[in-house]
């Protein structure tokens, strides 16, 4: 019998257990599987590796990649490389957290439950909303869920979404809308902002929600006050997708009357890891409390009056309500929500403002340096930590030259917008040093 370190079964165990069961051999336990569908032989997958060889192979794969720690990166577009305090990883490696299941037995899950209750509170604080759930898969699926919820709440069928919302979020939204037979209408973009007159034109009695992003995909700060007025003409919901770090300096969407605020907590302590897993968040006003998808943690007490936490309002959820549930979501991103909470605790009240401000300052410094190098900055609107520049040739070619200089350039906007050839979306976070920004500007300035 081959041995594996995760399989404690010995040959003696096996014999003793078969005897207790009353069968002669292992095979007898599989007689209920029809012969025709029994798999013969070994699966055609790679052979097992011992730990040393495994490490070598996985290291080989990892080293084939160029990572954003070794190469200064100016990529953002929904996924950001930020300062991650060392404590985040140390606390996440407490295996009582990561090897636990969903906290259905509160007596032995108080740690996880309290951690999530604290996460919910932090998201409320950041967004200015009444309550938040325990997390969603990511920002874009949270946005799609918000749209579905708006249709359920308003009994209307049309979703208005600005083209300044992340293109992949709009793609996910359209896929989800197809499932529910909803119509998605995209609102034009004008100078990198939501075209308010187009929004006004498209808004009608069938509008379930108006969805915008703040700061938007181009980094620009949308005029939520004006959009809210249009969104709330009728009964539709006003949904704002927001980078939570930006809310360290920007007015929270709650102040502007948003009904739902969604986004991704990835900027807080979660590595970029090729785009996932990250951590969607979902925050609403009190009146939508019973419509929220996913898990909610609530505070209560035990017989002795001791404070404790439980999963609550579960009558919304699939394991109770089955086909009548508010969503099919089951697993979420609990561990990442915990990681984000640890990061937010570490960064803290003052640190949040400082970190957000650093993003504003450094991105505007980069803008200035690029202008000095003769690069056209397309963004004329106020922005947070991202902005758009025009290049003399395709972004793909420019990025190749940047890479030769050891720099990972920004996003090629032509990837998502046909009318944005030669436009690059540049993200500058607090991690980029003066030297890296200067070098980036210098190399770009030299490209003809």
């Amino acid at each position, binding site marked *: 019998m*081959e041995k594996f370190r*995760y399989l404690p*079964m010995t040959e003696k165990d096996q014999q003793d*257990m078969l005897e207790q069961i009353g069968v002669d051999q292992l095979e007898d336990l599989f007689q209920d599987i029809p012969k025709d569908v029994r*798999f013969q032989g070994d*699966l*055609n*997958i790679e*052979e097992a590796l011992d730990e040393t060889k495994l490490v070598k192979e*996985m290291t080989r794969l990892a080293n084939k990649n160029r990572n954003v*720690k070794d190469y200064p990166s100016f990529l953002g577009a*929904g996924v950001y490389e930020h*300062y991650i*305090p060392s*404590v985040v*990883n140390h*606390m996440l490696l407490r295996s009582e957290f*990561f090897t636990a299941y*969903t906290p259905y037995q509160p*007596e*032995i899950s108080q*740690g996880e439950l309290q951690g999530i209750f*604290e996460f919910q509170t932090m998201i409320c*604080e*950041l967004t200015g909303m*009444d309550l938040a759930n*325990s*997390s969603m898969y990511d920002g874009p699926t949270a946005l799609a869920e918000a749209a579905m919820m708006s249709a359920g709440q308003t009994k209307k069928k049309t979703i208005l979404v600005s083209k300044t919302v992340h293109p992949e979020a709009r793609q*996910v939204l359209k*896929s989800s809308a197809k*499932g529910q037979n909803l119509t998605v209408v995209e609102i034009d973009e004008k100078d990198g902002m939501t075209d308010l007159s187009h929004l006004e034109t498209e808004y009608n009695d069938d509008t379930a929600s108006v969805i915008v992003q703040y700061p938007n995909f181009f980094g620009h700060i949308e005029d939520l006050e004006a959009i809210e007025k249009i969104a709330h003409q009728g009964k539709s919901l006003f949904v704002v997708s927001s980078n939570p770090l930006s809310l*360290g*300096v920007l007015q929270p969407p709650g102040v502007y009357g948003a009904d739902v605020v969604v986004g991704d907590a990835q900027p807080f302590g979660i590595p*970029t*890891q090729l785009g*996932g897993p990250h951590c969607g968040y979902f925050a609403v006003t009190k009146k939508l409390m019973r419509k929220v998808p996913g*898990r909610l943690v*609530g*505070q209560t007490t*035990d017989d002795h009056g001791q*404070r*404790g936490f439980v999963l609550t*309002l579960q009558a919304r959820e699939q394991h109770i309500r*089955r*086909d009548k549930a508010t*969503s099919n979501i*089951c*697993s979420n991103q609990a*561990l990442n929500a915990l990681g984000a909470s640890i990061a937010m*605790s*570490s960064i*803290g*009240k*003052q640190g949040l403002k*400082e970190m957000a*401000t650093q993003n*504003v300052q450094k991105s505007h410094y980069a803008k200035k340096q690029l202008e000095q190098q003769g690069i056209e900055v397309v963004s004329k609107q106020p922005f*947070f930590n991202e902005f758009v520049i025009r290049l003399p040739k395709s972004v793909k070619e420019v990025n190749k030259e940047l*890479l030769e200089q050891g720099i*990972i350039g920004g996003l090629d906007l032509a990837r998502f917008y046909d009318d944005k050839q030669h436009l690059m979306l540049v993200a500058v976070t607090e991690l980029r040093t003066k030297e890296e920004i200067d070098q980036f500007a210098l190399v770009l300035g030299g490209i003809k």
Partner: protein
Amino acid sequence: MSENNQALIFELSKEGRIGHSLPEMDIEEMDINDLIPTQFQRKENPELPEVSELQIVRHYTALSRRNHGVDSGFYPLGSCTMKYNPKINEDVARYPGFAHLHPYQDETTIQGALELMYKLQRSLEEITGMDQVTLQPAAGAHGEWTGLMLIRAYHEANGDHQRTKVIVPDSAHGTNPASAVVAGFESVTVKSNEQGLVDLDHLRELVGNDTAALMLTNPNTLGLFEEQIVEMAEIIHEAGGKLYYDGANSNAILGITRPGDMGFDVVHLNLHKTFTTPHGGGGPGSGPVGVKQDLVPYLPAPLVQKDGDTYRLDYDIPESIGRVKPYYGNFGINVRAYTYIRTMGPVGLRMVSQFAVLNANYMLRRLEPYFDAPYKQHCKHEFVLSGKRQKKLGVRTLDMAKRLLDFGYHPPTIYFPINVEECMMIEPTETESKETLDEFCDAMIQIAKEVEETPEVVQEAPHNTVIDRLDETTAARKPVLRYQKES
């Protein structure tokens, strides 16, 4: 409230403390009012805690001590496959070459990641017997919805718009009917028979030209193999429907039988169950979906393809149902799953399922004298017991579950599947030793005796946990979902 309360991180906060070390500002700062117009600037800072690094460490360490994971002790939570989460997987997922990649990097700079994804796709195709796998779905329920959207696209492409019904067994996970509805279908329930298997006569009555699909978990949630799977596949296919495999219970079948060979058209896997990626207290998971050839045209883009020695993202899927997840799925989780597959290889994976099944049958036979076992046949990787006998003595399954906490165990799944009275669903997994199984069985037997002799000990359990049973009614009636600073 009690003075023994575990403090919230907000209650540790004191103005002026910090727990961070932000990068120094190495540039000349500009006036913020020149950069962000004042009307957009936040007026009041959000109330995040102000705590030192050690306070953070103590706080989260204290919380972790109030939590039970697989590393803390046995966790036989049925249908959740709480097996050991290998440490090496955590190391590998944290390699900078995996953890610090940006999804919009040029493909030439992420060849290792794409190679891993490609090989994981191929491995999962072989394990499930399907033609093409997408790694995009974030979790099991997300995979279910994706799979159903694929089926819907297939029927619509054939002009079969009347196929609006998805058949789901009464023993199915709640996500099945919920996913069907979210994908725009109506969910219809097929009954189980006395052997705990799908009632074929009832299934025959239900199918018709409005059948879009049958969703099936096999082995089912009672831990029983649907022996008539080939007939069921015929019934569904003859009616023009598709057969959907809920992979939640794949831990029983690795290298033993494959959904693709059983006649399934679509499969999702829960990598956080079968392939050892951690449950994380509820996520993140990963829910890859595999399909047969006739559904490949509808898969979400991109897929990873191999051209010679290079790997690329293929977006050219004109009939795709569209994107279901930003970027490329939960890559960090997929790294862990691939690491596990490479650890076990074909022989190891088969042994996983053999031992998972052996462990479950052993426990079933040890426990059946003391509890009602509604199904007599051999089980697969999990089994159900009923607490009917104990209920007659005034002790409910919930009480017995709470009593198990006193022994340091996470209880089994209870009151699911819904078609078994006072249900306990037990899944030991292959990573537990015989000694652990025996100790757990001894505890269960002791509890069964307590029910007869000293029922109050069970009814009033737990006795040793950091907190007693909580008032869930008040939590739902007067929800407190966030901390508010006392003013």
